[in-house]
């Protein structure tokens, strides 16, 4: 007797969100990237449509990072203090489809870069590469409220993905995205309720749901990955079961989390039994990312080009449909 797979029928699908805008669409990007749209759990092609593959985005900073592991130096050491060159390298050499520009320099405790400085960095990167951009603030609400609206205004029409709005601080960023036609990252602290509440708050400001990507926060392998995983999974199942306020594509700040972990960073000399550091860190980042892909992550923000390559390969393999009928 022929095998017939049990299929779950879902009521809803994940929203699609477009990153970037081409010239015809009011921007300057060479191409756009669409995420989301799936009507089944991750990679279960036989159950529903998975029209868009998960996207790997490489992260660059506006200033030279001081706390990145030495194993990045062979890749980025020559471009760390030049965001445009760094961006070009990510796209041209490491095949990034999307870039994340983290405006770490704006942090008052680091370089306290002015909104104008930040705008210039973003504009320069836009000019240097054709790919869609994700722009993240420094993470300090008060400063981000000055910087991100300025960036949004100066790049109106580019349809950047700007982040992050949080429950305690969402209004000015959401308003800026709405007015200047960008998309928004809604970040919640590993809490499915706050994740949903923030989406309600933002959509009630009339930012349309297809301009929101959620970052439910995750953790690196060994640091609570399973919590991040289960929240992501709940959001995804919620979306498929019809919850419109959980139907946004999911972004995961993987690189940021992994490269804070001791296991990714500690040198081979200090911990010889753990194996060689560069590979260990790369595998730590790739493992965290591939685990979260299974929970439903749509945009993976990564740091190490080798880890990113491994994840892209994993995605390519998983995007080959399984056909039980054959």
């Amino acid at each position, binding site marked *: 007797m022929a095998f017939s797979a049990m299929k779950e029928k879902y009521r809803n699908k994940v929203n699609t969100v477009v990153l970037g805008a081409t010239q015809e669409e009011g921007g300057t990007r060479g191409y756009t990237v669409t995420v989301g749209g799936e009507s089944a759990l991750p990679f279960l092609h036989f159950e529903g449509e998975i029209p868009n593959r998960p996207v790997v985005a490489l992260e660059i900073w506006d200033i030279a990072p001081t706390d990145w592991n030495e194993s990045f130096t062979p890749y980025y050491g020559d471009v760390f203090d030049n965001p445009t060159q760094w961006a070009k390298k990510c796209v041209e050499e490491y095949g990034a489809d999307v870039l994340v520009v983290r405006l770490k320099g704006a942090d008052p405790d680091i370089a306290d870069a002015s909104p104008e400085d930040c705008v210039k960095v973003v504009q320069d990167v836009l000019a240097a590469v054709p790919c869609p951009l994700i722009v993240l603030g420094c993470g300090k609400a008060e400063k981000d409220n000055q910087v991100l609206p300025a960036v949004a205004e100066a790049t109106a029409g580019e349809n950047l993905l700007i982040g992050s709005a949080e*429950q*305690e601080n969402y*209004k000015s960023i959401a308003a800026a995205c709405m007015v200047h036609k960008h998309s928004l990252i809604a970040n919640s602290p590993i*809490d499915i*309720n706050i994740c*949903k*509440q923030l989406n*309600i*708050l933002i959509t*009630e400001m009339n930012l349309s749901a297809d301009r929101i990507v959620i970052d439910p926060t995750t953790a690196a392998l060994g640091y609570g990955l399973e919590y991040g995983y289960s929240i992501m999974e709940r959001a995804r199942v919620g979306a498929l079961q019809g919850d419109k*306020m959980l139907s946004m594509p999911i972004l995961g700040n993987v690189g940021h989390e992994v490269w804070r972990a001791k296991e990714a960073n500690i040198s081979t000399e200090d911990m010889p039994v753990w194996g060689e550091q560069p590979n260990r860190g790369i595998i730590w980042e790739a493992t965290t990312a591939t685990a979260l892909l299974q929970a439903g992550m749509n945009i993976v923000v990564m740091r190490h080009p080798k880890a990113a390559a491994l994840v892209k390969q994993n995605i390519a393999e998983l995007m080959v449909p399984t056909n039980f009928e054959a």
Partner: protein
Amino acid sequence: MDKITVLFNPDNLAVQVEPGTSLLHAANLAGIELVSSCGGDGTCGRCLVKVQDGHVRVKGTGNISSRAKQAGLVLACQTFAEGNVVVDIPGRSRLEEHQVLLDEQQLLVEKDVEGAEGFKLQPLCSKLTLTLTPPTLDENVADWERLQTAVRNEICCSDIRISLSVLKQLPEALRAGDWQVTIGVTQINGCAEVIAVESGHAKTSKLYGVAIDIGTTTVAAHLVDLVSGFTVSKKGTYNKQARFGDDVISRIIHASERPEGLAELHHTIINTINGLLAELLQPGNLAAQDVLMVTVAANTTMTHLFLGIPPKYIRLEPYIPLAAATPAVKAQEVGLNINPEAYVVCFPSVASYVGGDIVSGTLVTNVAKDERITLFIDIGTNGEMVLGNQDWLVSAACSAGPAFEGGGITYGMRAMKGAIDNVEINPDNFEVEVSTIGRCRAKGLCGSGLIDCLATFRNVGIIDRAGKMQTDIQTPRLRQAEEGWEFVLVYGEDSDSGKDIVITENDVKNLLRAKAAVYAGIHSMLNAVELDIGMIERVLIAGGFGNYLNIRDAITIGLLPDLPAEKYMFIGNSSLKGARLALISQEAWHEAQELGDKITYLELSAGNDFMEEFMSALFLPHTDMSLFPSVTNAK
């Protein structure tokens, strides 16, 4: 022309008036103030009363609603007594809500809602006048057995007892009245006991009972004439145990960890009640000896402390009380200053946190006799709730914290004079209008004021759905203080203390948690029995706080389920009403005993469901907006 008598119920106050006097005037003479906005012109339609008996002349009906007319209500100012009449005054016709004055000029608010109907007057203690056949040499049955025979002819009970001390009074009492005797008989749970004997057929013989509601914070009591069933007087006061802590947990700790703690708490509540008893008896100069029955409805901890039994294990997992149903005791055993032989009975509890007060409320609201699915909820420091109908009943308790009673809120206070109970804010300029209980200068906000405030803040956009203050709105009332953002409701020049009355962002968060706990309790209970909110056919709200609560506001903030307003009903202090009902109806008392066994208790702290529900309820109105369609669509 002879004067006529007008008797006002439920006060049981009678006045002599000339025939043709308006009922409004008669009520004033009796010291009862009715709402009469138009001053007796028959136009405002608010002085509604019901003529129960007697001849009256109705001059006009003004603009009373057809529903009121159907219910037999008339305007007191337009209705004139022509003969002796008996008039019933509904609570809403009284000037101010019916308020029991408490110590320190504070108010315990209570509205009269009729007790369950359909119980016949058959008090737990009654007086019997008996004429015994005198003994002879041939018919030489002993005094007590002779009395027993006579009692058996009057009441349907074979198990008739007497205490030693009453027995000692018997021989002289029988003979002094020439074998005519008046006795007090208590009938509880199928047993009868002769607890008082008096020689002769005393016409003036009085018989009273007292119904007591012991709350953690307040104690309220009714003195009831057990012959007529009418309430003679009502009093309320603060539970003097408050000095050992505000909540049941701190009382339990005091009782368990201090050597004299339990005795202290026991004596304190007995003192509190003895003070109330004295006040109850004082107006008519009534004798404490004539009080022969007491019913007590209280939460489980208060019942334990009242009886002086250790409550220690209520607080410790798995949260077990010493007894759910407690034995009937004599007044002298607990130290109440009434007839020492009088019986005192406490309503049975369901569980450690669903007590006799809830059983009493369930009794008086007839939840267990109605086919409609009813949610009965008592909102206080603990939210206690009962859900079900004639076929099944479940109960649960959740800890809401003291916010609705004013605790943990910067300007929170109990519902007493000076408490803001209503807040209106102009959405254009954020100007505020408040009203206070007693129409005096504002001192703070009571629970209903806080709920109203939260709903209004949300409606005009001062806070977002997560309870965060929207600092971009233009008004000097919203300002940053040391502790964070705050909104000024009443400026110092208009407040009682001269200080600005504010609501802080932290207050909003505390309220959010309190309302989330109550809603999560309701929802978890519904989940446990797999019912949707829409299946609830009526919601009864008890507690002093319930009377002022604006249902629309409570739904707007997601405290109560989104059901049509007509499904909601306030029932005031249902615990006290149930105690009063049981006092005058053996059948009701019997039912209360059964209810204690019948109600299934759901422990919300077992499992994760409550916590998940709580987290999703921390939003205005709720993270799952589809649960509140009327709030979402109104926007």
